[in-house]
C-alpha cells in the first residue's frame, strides 16, 4: 500500500501539533483510524484462518452431504427425503444460493455479534476501540464492513462446495455479474448490520440463547431451503416471511446465481436489501452508542 503510507505521514504532521484539524486533515485522520481498525481485524483473522475456515465449511458441507449425497444414494431416497421429492432433482440447485445466504448470515453473527458480546462484557476491550480518533459510529461501521468481507469470503467458499458435492447436477449460471456483485455486497453488509443489532441489544450472558430464538427461526423461515414462490399455497406464510431480511438474501442470490429457479423481482430484492441495510445499520449504531457512551 504505497500510497496509503505517504498519506499517513501527511495526516500525521498536519493535526497533531495544533489540535485543530482542518476539514480535509480531519477526514484523513478518520480514514487512517478506520484503516487501522480494519488492518487489525484482518491481522487477527488471518492468524485464526483455520478455525475461520472450519466454521464456514462445516455447516454447508454436512448439509450437502446428507441431503444431496447420502439421500439420493439411498435406496428409495426420494421417499425418505420429502424435501428432495418436492423440489425434484432441483433440490441441489435450490440449496446452492440458500447455503450461500446462510453462510453470509452466520458470518455476520460470528464476526460481529459474538465478539461484541465479549467486548461489552467482562473484558471491556471495546473501550479501547472507542478511544480511537474517529466518531464512535465509525467504529460500529468498521465492524459491519469487516464482517461483510468475511461474509463474501464465506460465500466464495460455499459456492464450489454446493456446486461439486451434490450427487445430482446443479444448474448454476451467473447471467448478470454486476447484479450478482451488488446482491452479494448488500447481503453481506446487511448481515453485518444484523450482527451489530443482535450484539448490541442482547446481554452478553444471553448471546447463546440468540441462536435458538433468532438465528435458527430466521434461517429456516428465510427461503433458504425453498424458493419463496413455492410458498404460494400458504399465502399467510408467504406474506409473513417478507419481514425477514434473510428472504431477500437467498432470493437475491437465487436470482443472480440460479436464475432458472423461480425468484422474486430483482428490483424488489435490491430495494428491500437496501431498506434492511439502512434500517439495521441505524438501529445497530444507536445500540452501539447507547452501550459505549454513558
Amino acid at each position, binding site marked *: 500500500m504505497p500510497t496509503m503510507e505517504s498519506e499517513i*505521514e501527511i495526516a500525521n504532521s498536519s493535526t497533531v501539533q495544533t489540535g485543530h484539524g482542518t476539514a480535509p486533515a480531519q477526514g484523513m485522520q478518520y480514514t487512517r483510524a478506520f484503516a*487501522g481498525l480494519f488492518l487489525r481485524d484482518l491481522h487477527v483473522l488471518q492468524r485464526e484462518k483455520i478455525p475461520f475456515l472450519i466454521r464456514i465449511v462445516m455447516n454447508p458441507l454436512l448439509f450437502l452431504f446428507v441431503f444431496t449425497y447420502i439421500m439420493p444414494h439411498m435406496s428409495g431416497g426420494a421417499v425418505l427425503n420429502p424435501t428432495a421429492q418436492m423440489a425434484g432433482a432441483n433440490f441441489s440447485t435450490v440449496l446452492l444460493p440458500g447455503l450461500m445466504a446462510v453462510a453470509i448470515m452466520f458470518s455476520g453473527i460470528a464476526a460481529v455479534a459474538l465478539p461484541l458480546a465479549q467486548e461489552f462484557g467482562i473484558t471491556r476491550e471495546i473501550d*479501547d476501540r472507542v478511544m480511537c480518533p474517529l466518531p464512535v459510529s465509525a467504529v460500529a461501521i468498521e465492524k459491519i464492513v469487516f464482517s461483510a468481507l468475511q461474509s463474501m469470503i464465506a460465500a466464495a467458499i460455499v459456492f464450489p462446495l454446493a456446486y461439486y458435492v451434490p450427487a445430482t447436477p446443479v444448474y448454476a449460471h451467473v447471467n448478470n455479474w454486476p447484479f450478482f456483485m451488488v446482491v452479494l455486497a448488500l447481503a453481506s453488509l446487511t448481515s453485518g448490520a444484523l450482527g451489530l443489532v443482535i450484539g448490541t441489544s442482547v446481554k452478553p450472558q444471553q448471546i447463546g440463547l440468540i441462536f435458538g430464538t433468532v438465528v435458527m427461526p430466521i434461517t429456516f423461515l428465510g427461503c433458504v431451503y425453498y424458493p419463496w414462490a413455492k410458498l404460494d399455497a400458504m399465502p399467510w406464510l408467504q406474506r409473513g416471511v417478507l419481514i425477514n431480511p434473510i428472504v431477500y438474501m437467498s432470493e437475491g442470490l437465487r436470482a443472480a446465481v440460479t436464475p432458472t429457479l423461480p425468484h422474486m423481482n430483482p428490483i424488489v430484492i435490491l430495494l428491500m436489501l437496501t431498506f434492511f441495510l439502512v434500517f439495521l445499520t441505524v438501529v445497530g449504531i444507536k445500540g452501539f452508542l447507547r452501550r459505549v457512551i454513558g
Partner: protein
Amino acid sequence: MASIVQVEGLRKVYEGKQRVVALDGIALGVREGELYGLLGPNGAGKTTAISICTTRVLPTSGAVRIAGIDVVESPALARRLMGIVPQYNTLDRACTIYENIHFHCLYFGFSRTDAKQRTNQLLEQFHLTERADSYPSQLSGGLAQRVQIARAIAHRPKVLFLDEPSAGLDPQSRIAMWDAVRGLREEGITVVLTTHYMEEADELCDRVAIIDHGKILVEDTPATLKGSVGAQKVYCLDLSDRDSPAALVGQLKLVHGVRGVEPTSGGIRVFADNADGLLPEIVRVSNPYGLRDLTMTETSLETVFIRLTGRDLRE
C-alpha cells in the same frame, strides 16, 4: 498559566431505578506539565469524572476542555490529545503486547515504519521488550498495567488520564508504576490520576483535589493541604465507654498543644502539635474514661479528609 484540562460546572446524573448524582458541579483546572491527583473514597465520582474527560461518558451539564478543545463537541479531535488507562484492563486480548501498541499507533495515523519504531522504543522504555510476543492474558497485573500506560502514551498525547492506576497492584509493582509515571512528567506529559490511597496522592502528585459525593472539597498542593489542618499529629483514642463523654472532650481541649478534639464512633480523635510530653498527658487524662488503645499518626491527606468530612477515607 492557562489550564490544559479545564473542567467547569460538571454534573452527571445517572437516571434509572435509583437516581444517582455521581458528579454535583465540579470545577478544576490542571496546569500543563503537572501531576494532578483526584483523591476520594469509593463511589466519590472519580471514574465518572475521568470518563467524561475522556469522551466515554456524556455530562448532564458543564464542560470539559482539553487544550481548549471541548470534549463533547469534538470528541474525535480531543482523543488525539489524551491517553487513557482505565480502571480495568482493556488490552486487546486477540493481539500480542507488540501488536497492541503497534495497532494503537496505526489508529492514530502513524505510518507503518513510524509505528514500528515507536512500538520498539516504548517496549524498551517500559522494560517490556522480552514480553513483546506475549498475549495480555499471560501477563501479571503489574505488567499489564505497564503495557496499558505504554499504549496510552504511544500517540504522544498531551495529557494522560490514569484511573486508579495502583488498584490491585502489589507494593513492588506500585513503586515501579510510580517511577513510570514520574518519568512521564519528565517527557512533558501532564498526568491526571485518581486514587483512594492518600499515600499515593501525597507521594506522587503536585496538586490534589479531594472529591467526595461528587463534590470537590479542596484543591491544593499536598503540603498546603496538610498544613491547613493546623496540627502535626492525630491521636485516635479507643474508649470502652462507647458514647464518648463530653467531659473528656472538654478536658482534652485544655491540654497544652491540642488543636482540636472530636468524637468518633468508638472514641475520640485529637488533633495536636508536636508538643513535648503530650502523649503521657493524653493518656493520663483519658485513662479514667476507659482508654483501651491509642494510635498516633502524622498528619496526612487522610487527616485532611477526616477534617473535611468527619469520615475515614476507608469507611
